[in-house]
Structure formats: C-alpha cells, structure tokens
C-alpha cells in the first residue's frame, strides 16, 4: 500500500526527548514508535469549515466591552502543503498571552496583570486560497520554571487540522528578531536551523494598516502528498 502522505521530512519536527526542555524527560515514550501503513483511519480526518466558526472569532481585540492594551497586530498567511498547494476551508485555532505576558489561564501565576479586555483565543477557517487572518495584540514574553531565568520568546500558539488525521499540527508562531531565541529550549528543540526559522513570522509593511495595526505574515506548511521519484529529478 503506497503512502498518501509524506513520511520523509521529519527532520522538521523536534524529537520527543529534548533534555533541555525538562518535562520531556518523563513524558516522552521510551519505546520506539511503531510504523504502520497509512490506512483509511489515518488519511481521513475531521472536517470543519465555515459553518463552525463566526467571523468575529478571528478578531481577538473585539471580544470584550473595551479594547485590550498592547500593540495591535494583524497576523495572516497561507496554509499550504509540502507541494505548495493551498489548504482551503481548514480550521485554524490560536491562543496566546496578553501584552504583559500573562495568560488568562487559571494555572498561570506570573505576577503580571490580566487584561479584562483580552481572553487570547481565536479561530477562523482558511479561504479558497488557504489564507487565514487574525487581528490581535502582540503577546509579551513571560518567565517559566524550566530553569533559572527561563523566559519564553513572544509567541502565538497555532492549531491546524488540515485534510487528514496525519496533517494535524500544533505549533507556535514567533516574532522576528526576538532576543530570547538563543535561550529558549522549546524553540531550539527544532534542531534543524532552517526548519526553526520557518516558525518565525516576518513583518510586512503592505499588511500593516496606516494609523491602526502592524502586519505580520506567516505561512504554515502541513504534511503533503508523498514525494514521487519525479519530484526529485534534476533538482
């Protein structure tokens, strides 16, 4: 049975055990994963579309009585597969901390203020060209307990379904030029430098709206069709 989805390309993903990220020690399986064929169970996956989201859910600055504090930003890009094809009508979910680096989450004890006008959750569905777009505020950096003086670079969590169980991806989008990159074990768990850079958005003046918001572009690439021998020809 041939593979519908690529298997090669795993170098993009971090390993399950990455000792610098301490909690991987007791949470990464010790036994090797068992390789199985891609059956109907894996090449199918949840189908969610425009009827499952509301347009206002893509604007995280309009979910409360007032506007949240912070630097208003537009985050947009294309959802693609490895062949460069757009992934249309696909659910994108995001979550993040506020401009001060505090999550609304009950477990977050960072002594930075909550913002009564910011929850930090959004969702949208990609359009026919695979484009998603959110309006939010730039999240702050925040400390965490992994090691002494550990700080996470500013990031937005992204959840993508794609067209199958195998295209499922949860990742984080970072902002260009963050001085915390060299010190963050989660960012650096992706050991391939080029793959690591694919998690970093770019500032874009054309996306930036005068007198209103800065624009960032970030394309996301999901597992795509398995490579055929011709694909590697003459490259």
């Amino acid at each position, binding site marked *: 049975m041939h593979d519908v989805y690529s298997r090669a390309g795993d170098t993009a993903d971090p390993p*399950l055990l990455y000792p610098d990220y301490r*909690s991987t020690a007791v949470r990464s399986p010790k036994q090797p994963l*068992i*390789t199985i064929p891609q*059956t109907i169970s894996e090449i199918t996956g949840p189908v969610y579309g425009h009827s499952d989201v509301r347009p206002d859910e893509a604007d995280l600055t309009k979910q409360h009585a007032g506007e949240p504090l912070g630097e208003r930003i537009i985050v947009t890009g294309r959802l693609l597969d490895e*062949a460069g094809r757009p992934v249309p009508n696909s659910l994108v979910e995001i*979550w993040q901390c506020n401009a001060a680096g505090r999550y609304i989450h009950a477990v977050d004890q960072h002594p930075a203020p909550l913002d009564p006008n910011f*929850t930090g959750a959004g969702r949208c569905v990609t359009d026919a060209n695979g484009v998603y777009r959110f309006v939010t505020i730039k999240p702050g950096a925040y400390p965490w307990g992994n090691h002494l003086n550990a700080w996470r670079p500013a990031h937005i*969590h992204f959840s993508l379904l794609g067209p199958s169980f195998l295209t499922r991806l949860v990742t984080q989008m970072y902002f260009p030029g963050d001085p915390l990159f060299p010190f963050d074990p989660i960012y650096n768990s992706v050991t391939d430098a080029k793959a690591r850079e694919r998690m970093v958005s770019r500032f874009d003046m054309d996306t930036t709206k005068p007198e209103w918001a800065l624009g960032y572009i970030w394309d996301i690439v999901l597992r795509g069709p398995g490579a055929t021998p011709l*694909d590697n020809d003459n490259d």
Partner: protein
Amino acid sequence: MTDKRAGRTPSQTVGPYLHIGLVPGMYGVREVFSPVLADAGMPGTHIRIEGRVLDGAGAVMPDAMLEIWQADAQGRYAHPADGRPLASNSFRGFGRVATDKDGGFFVATVKPGQAKGPGDKLQAPHINVGLFARGLLKRLFTRIYFDGDPANAADPILALVPAERRATLLARPDPTKAGLWRFDIHLQGPQETVFFDA
C-alpha cells in the same frame, strides 16, 4: 519541471495553557468540540470510555488533551476519502477532551464498526487517539481497540505490534456498568502504551 517542495512547519508543544485555545469553554469561549461524539439517537452500540493519562513517574497528567477520530458504527469515516454515506449526518467522528485534575478523561460515543484496511482486509473496530500535553513536543498517536472483539485477531495494525505489548491498546469492559470501557495511557514504564508513526 521540478516540483519545489516546501519545508514543513515544525511541531511545538501545546504547553500548559492549551485549554484557552483548544477546549476554551471554561474561559467563556464558545466550544466547537466535545467529548460526546454521539447523541442518544445515533445508530450503534453506545459506549463510554474512561481512563487516565500517566507520565513516566507514575504521576497523573492533569494538563493533557486527547483528540478522538473514529468511524461510525458501520465503519465509515465522515470524510471524502472514505466516500460512503454515513448512518447519520450528524456524526462527525471527532472529539476533544482535556484531562481533569486526576488525569482522567471520558469519551461518549458509539463503538466503531470495521473500517477498510490495507488490501481487501478489514480493520478491527478501533478509535484513533491523538495525545497532546506540556512536555510533548509533538502529538503522540495511538489506537484504542476493544478487548474480546473477535476481529482483533486478524487486525493488520495490531499484527505489527509485538504480542507482549498489544494489551496496552485494549480497552477493557468495566464490570460495574454496561457499556463502560476503561483505557489508561502510560507514557513510560512497564505498561507504556504503544504509539504509532504513520
């Protein structure tokens, strides 16, 4: 023409605050997903699966999330790649559940039928599970099979699992209540659950 393949976006952990984005009801955000995959009118054998997620130290994991993907009672997936009509239009086959403070979870659904397998074989009834948590840099994926199902013996995926580890993939009926099954996930240790790569 040469196809220029694009590099994949790497996976990153969901972190400890996944609930805000993925199961956000407790933060006042409308939920799209639920641990209840089948309403009472759904054709099929209604079941409830309960279990816990445990780490390598044997500690319960209160910050994990499971995603459930399954066929309907007739073995059909609600997806174009399956292509067969479903027993019910309301069945989407997908659910999410976050673990509670005791690492526990439940799923209420119908027992899936036998989905198509490689070649002409059928697969034994199974539920596909994606596991996410702080400390998991990428999703883990496993399957829940049903102990005692006669189709298990011929299942092409179970056959790839060393015999001594197959029991980690079997939900067991709870004798205290009809329709209740138990399935724990162990990330490490002597009962480490089998995880797959496809």
